[in-house]
């Protein structure tokens, strides 16, 4: 049986406001427990929520970036459940008329582009944290996080593999950072994914029964959890069993998902409009104001890199994976309009590898785009070889010679021999010392030629231009 995988993602993004969504307490990460929990966050009797304009603004920006409908009025609802990290006994969320409805995001998987539809994105407050370590058999509650603004972004079940799910999550992650509504810090929980996974026989229209995997806080876990879950479901179905709709947890240590709760005891949240909050009206001119404040979006840049620079869809996607990366690339490309592909290769290759080694982001790269452009220029004009360029790059990275590319080349003696007469003498010496190989080559052994090139390069201590050596050798032996 051929199975088709169906995935939808729900992503909780923490909005980058200074203060909480309904109170004036700080949202800064890492404060001492409960020092940022105000009366509203603690749900003391008589307090009322007041909505943060900054949270609404960020939600609208997101809606505009994905071409969604911005609902006005938009309303808040109470989602009722009992848990001590939520002292009100309900979470303020949105049910009917979420602030953002519809829209879509284009993702790149290999060389294929695919559009993923969004169902909605709604504002809600985060809950606090429960610590179940040993407090004499009790749980410790920290309400600093309670009331932190979240935008929950829900996709349609348009994803067909874990690779597509990861591509979507990464694209969304890049987008929310790009438009400055979320810091995207996954270790601190600013970007958390839940995956709805089901399988169906290929060709069948009806969706299979789905399971929801909660709280996947890295792209790797997202991929592993989906792969495991798909295998699990297919195995059950192929043995003639059926899938039970349930919520599952991913155990990162074991690499498997397990039951958290089944549908029978699923929460009935009894949503209803929150009487403490009035409908939010969003004036068209506010939306327009936010629309013009948006930067050029990753999708637009990606298309521009393909049409304007002739890059492949894959390269364009990599280079627009963050705004810092795209800005870096463009700054280098502007100085080398004829060598854009080479700039792209350097950034995706040597520079990314070097950044990874030190665990740095491109925004923290000690070698600026202007220096990279200059370095590429020196390869192009034949001053240095591609191999020597790597040495120069490392020197630039270390800040040697005041990051002057030419001074580094000079100081390290990396200049290629462009002087024909010096090279000619070298070649003559090599030919004289390797009479056997010369004879072999003339006798038809092509391999002998490469050996001779190697000898010349060695004699030149790597400073000869290989193309030039090739040409001159051919001429001499011809």
């Amino acid at each position: 049986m051929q199975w088709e995988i169906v995935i939808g993602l729900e992503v909780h993004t923490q909005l980058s406001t200074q203060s909480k969504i309904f109170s004036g307490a700080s949202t800064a990460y890492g404060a001492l427990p409960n020092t940022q929990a105000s009366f509203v966050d603690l749900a003391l009797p008589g307090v009322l929520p007041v909505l943060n304009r900054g949270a609404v603004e960020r939600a609208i920006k997101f809606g505009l970036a994905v071409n969604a409908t911005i609902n006005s009025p938009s309303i808040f609802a109470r989602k009722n459940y009992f848990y001590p990290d939520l002292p009100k006994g309900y979470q303020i969320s949105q049910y009917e008329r979420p602030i953002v409805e519809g829209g879509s995001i284009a993702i790149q998987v290999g060389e294929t582009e695919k559009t993923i539809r969004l169902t909605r994105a709604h504002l809600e407050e985060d809950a606090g944290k429960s610590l179940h370590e040993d407090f004499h058999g009790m749980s410790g509650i920290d309400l600093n996080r309670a009331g932190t603004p979240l935008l929950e972004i829900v996709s349609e079940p348009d994803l067909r593999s874990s690779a597509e799910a990861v591509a979507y999550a990464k694209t969304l992650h890049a987008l929310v950072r790009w438009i400055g509504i979320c810091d995207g810090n996954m270790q601190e929980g600013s970007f958390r994914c839940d995956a709805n996974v089901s399988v169906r026989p290929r060709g069948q229209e009806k969706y299979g029964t789905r399971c929801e995997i909660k709280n996947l806080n890295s792209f790797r876990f997202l991929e592993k959890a989906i792969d495991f879950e798909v295998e699990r479901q297919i195995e059950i179905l192929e043995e003639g069993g059926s899938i039970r709709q349930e919520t599952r947890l991913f155990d990162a240590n074991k690499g498997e998902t397990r039951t958290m709760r089944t549908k029978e005891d699923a929460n009935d949240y009894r949503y209803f409009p929150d009487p403490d909050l009035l409908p939010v009206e969003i004036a068209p001119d506010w939306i327009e104001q936010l629309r013009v404040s948006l930067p050029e979006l990753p999708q637009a840049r990606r298309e521009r890199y393909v049409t304007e620079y002739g890059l492949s869809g894959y390269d364009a996607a990599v280079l627009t994976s963050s705004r810092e990366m795209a800005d870096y690339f463009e700054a280098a490309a502007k100085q080398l309009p004829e060598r854009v592909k080479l700039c792209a290769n350097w950034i995706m290759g040597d520079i990314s590898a070097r950044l990874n080694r030190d665990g740095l982001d491109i925004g923290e790269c000690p070698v600026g785009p202007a220096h990279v452009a200059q370095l590429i220029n020196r390869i192009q004009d034949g001053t240095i070889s591609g191999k020597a360029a790597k040495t120069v790059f490392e020197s630039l990275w270390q800040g040697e010679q005041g990051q002057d590319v030419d001074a580094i080349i000079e100081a390290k003696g990396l200049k290629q021999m462009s002087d024909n007469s010096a090279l000619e003498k070298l070649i003559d010496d090599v030919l004289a010392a390797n009479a056997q190989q010369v004879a072999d080559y003339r006798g038809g052994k092509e391999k002998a030629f490469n050996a001779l090139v190697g000898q010349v390069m060695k004699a030149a201590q790597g400073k000869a231009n290989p193309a030039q050596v090739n040409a001159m050798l051919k001429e001499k032996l011809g």
Partner: protein
Amino acid sequence: MTLSINDVKQVAHLAYIKVSEEEAEAALSQLSGIFKLIESMQAVDTSHVEPMSHSQNLVQRLRDDRITESDQRDLCQSIAPQVENGLYLVPKVIE
């Protein structure tokens, strides 16, 4: 819609309210009365009426994104039954 005794018990369970058999029976008859009232209201044709999300015809005011609250942990925790290391302690809950 008719309400059953099980519906009452389920709602009580979700709301973490402990009810005895008699209380459940009493709640059933009271709630059924309310449902009857709703039923008679449903006879009114509201198909052309936009549903309200709030009883007052007002619009939500927004506040600027500024930190206006300072740390009042000591004050807040002075009325808590049990605290430790700055945390509020509650009976253990693991789902």
